[in-house]
């Protein structure tokens, strides 16, 4: 690693000077080892912000820089309640001051190029950053055109709201302007996609709003998949909370939409069926961010293959890819998964830079979905690394038939989860 430089030496000498009274106290020499080096983290979401913080927590001497395009982060978790009107977007918006306060250099800029050979990245603002280790947590981009006429311009008439922010507010505005008796159509993409239960929680939160404000309305989910996340628990909740307001249509029953027409607000399938919506939430097919695609770090399917213990790219040495962009076996593309991966990645980097072996990996996921007031369900899993692959060792979905007390507790603990995980990221 980098040599012990004069500046650090002077700092240490100053500290030593304050405690002459400690003469005779022996401190193990190894204790002074510890990780040093320069780590650059790109992307300040669940993966990147968590990774930056744990790098600094576990490697206090590390020089950690976080590069993030935006000045604040709006969480996708809880954004469905912004759409329903129960929360304001300001309540799910977080700044980066806590990271700066923890000694992380926060640079608001966009990456224009990655040079793994030269171990540097270029920023749109013109500067370059050198690194010993690079962590990329860039999230997803959309595969525009997977459905005929689903172009970037379509997101104005048929918002995806799959990156929280302006799109979330647009979908909220459309839902709240809809007439009573209207039809909302939700079109989830073919798997894999960010937040597998997201479209179904969204249907629930929209139904919660409609039940109170526009009870004659309907929600139609036209699904490109044969099954969906937490399916039995969602369907039980929908029936108990909303009667038949929400209808789910699987792929082989006509849910697999292959073209859309924003002008007539219709979507169509292969069978020749056309559905008209007053509000259409069209969630595009997904792939890893263009940032990693343009750097040549994606596989033929558009995602990033990594060593599932350290999250080092299988393509570029000293480049680590975490979060929605990477392939992590059975771990869903959730904020919690990203944070879990971030800690494993940080542990591998800190240990590696300290010259010691990384601890055995350990991962978990906890993902709550709100179905109605005081009613939530969850999926949980604990994972281990076996023969280089992440495997699930425990977990499952909330049981069908759970008492209302369990749903109420899950709804409460979901709020505690949000507070905890965002504090873990942003301080």
């Amino acid at each position, binding site marked *: 690693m980098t040599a012990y430089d004069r500046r650090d030496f002077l700092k*240490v*000498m100053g*500290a*030593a000077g*304050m*405690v002459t009274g*400690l*003469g005779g*106290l022996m*401190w193990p*020499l190894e*204790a*002074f*080892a*510890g990780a040093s080096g320069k780590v650059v983290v790109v992307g300040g979401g669940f993966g990147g912000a968590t990774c930056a913080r*744990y790098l600094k*927590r*576990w*490697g*206090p001497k590390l020089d950690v820089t976080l590069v993030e395009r935006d000045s604040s982060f709006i969480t996708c978790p809880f954004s469905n309640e912004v759409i329903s009107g129960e929360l304001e977007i300001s309540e799910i918006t977080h700044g980066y001051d806590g990271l700066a306060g923890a*000694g992380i250099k926060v640079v608001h800029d966009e990456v224009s190029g990655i040079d793994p050979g030269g171990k540097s990245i270029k920023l749109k603002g013109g500067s370059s950053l050198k690194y010993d280790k690079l962590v990329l947590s860039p999230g997803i981009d959309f595969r525009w055109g997977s459905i005929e006429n689903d172009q970037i311009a379509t997101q104005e008439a048929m918002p995806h709201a799959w990156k929280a922010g302006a799109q979330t507010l647009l979908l909220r505005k459309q839902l709240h302007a809809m007439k009573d008796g209207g039809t909302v159509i939700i079109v989830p993409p073919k798997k894999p996609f960010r937040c597998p239960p997201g479209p179904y929680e969204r249907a629930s939160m929209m139904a919660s709003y409609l039940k109170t404000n526009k009870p004659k309305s309907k929600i139609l989910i036209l699904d490109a998949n044969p099954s969906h996340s937490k399916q039995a628990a969602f369907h039980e909740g929908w029936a108990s909370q909303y009667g038949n307001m929400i209808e789910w249509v699987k792929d082989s029953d006509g849910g697999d939409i292959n073209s859309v027409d924003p002008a007539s607000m219709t979507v169509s399938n292969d069978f020749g069926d056309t559905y008209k919506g007053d509000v259409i939430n069209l969630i595009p097919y997904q792939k890893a961010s263009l940032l990693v695609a343009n750097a040549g770090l994606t596989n033929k399917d558009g995602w990033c293959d990594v060593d599932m213990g350290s999250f080092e790219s299988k393509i570029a040495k000293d480049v680590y890819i975490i979060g929605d962009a990477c392939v992590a076996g059975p771990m869903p593309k959730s904020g919690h998964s990203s*944070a879990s991966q971030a*800690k*494993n990645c940080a*542990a591998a980097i*800190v*240990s590696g830079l*300290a*010259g*010691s*072996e*990384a*601890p*055995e*990996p*350990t*991962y*978990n996921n*906890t993902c709550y979905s709100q179905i109605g007031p005081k009613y939530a369900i*969850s999926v*949980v*899993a*604990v994972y281990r690394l076996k023969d280089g692959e992440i495997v699930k*060792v*425990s*977990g*499952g979905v*909330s049981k069908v038939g759970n008492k209302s007390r*369990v749903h109420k*507790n*899950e709804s*409460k*603990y979901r709020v*505690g*989860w949000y*507070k*905890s*995980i965002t*504090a*873990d990221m942003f301080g």
Partner: protein
Amino acid sequence: MTNFRIITRYAFAAALVGGLGFTPGASAEGVSRVELMASQCNSCHGINGAGAKPNPSIAGENKEDFLDLMQAFASGDEPTSIMDRHAQGYTEAELKMLAEYYSKQ
């Protein structure tokens, strides 16, 4: 060089004593298995397990009680909304490591 090393030993001790930004629990050599395991709990139970209402604090929990409760969650003896699904993912040795760790937070 020898003198320099001795000075740096004291300096490091001084930094710890002075609380100059070193996090309790951080291993100087790298990251321990229990630190990594415990970090996974923080996502719901707050930084160092300190809790975020209504999610309970697990910091400073008596280690026998911690182990007993986690095992009761895993076996189904203690009703819970989600902790059974977590507790079943760890060996007894790992639960003991976590119990020891949180008793000192």
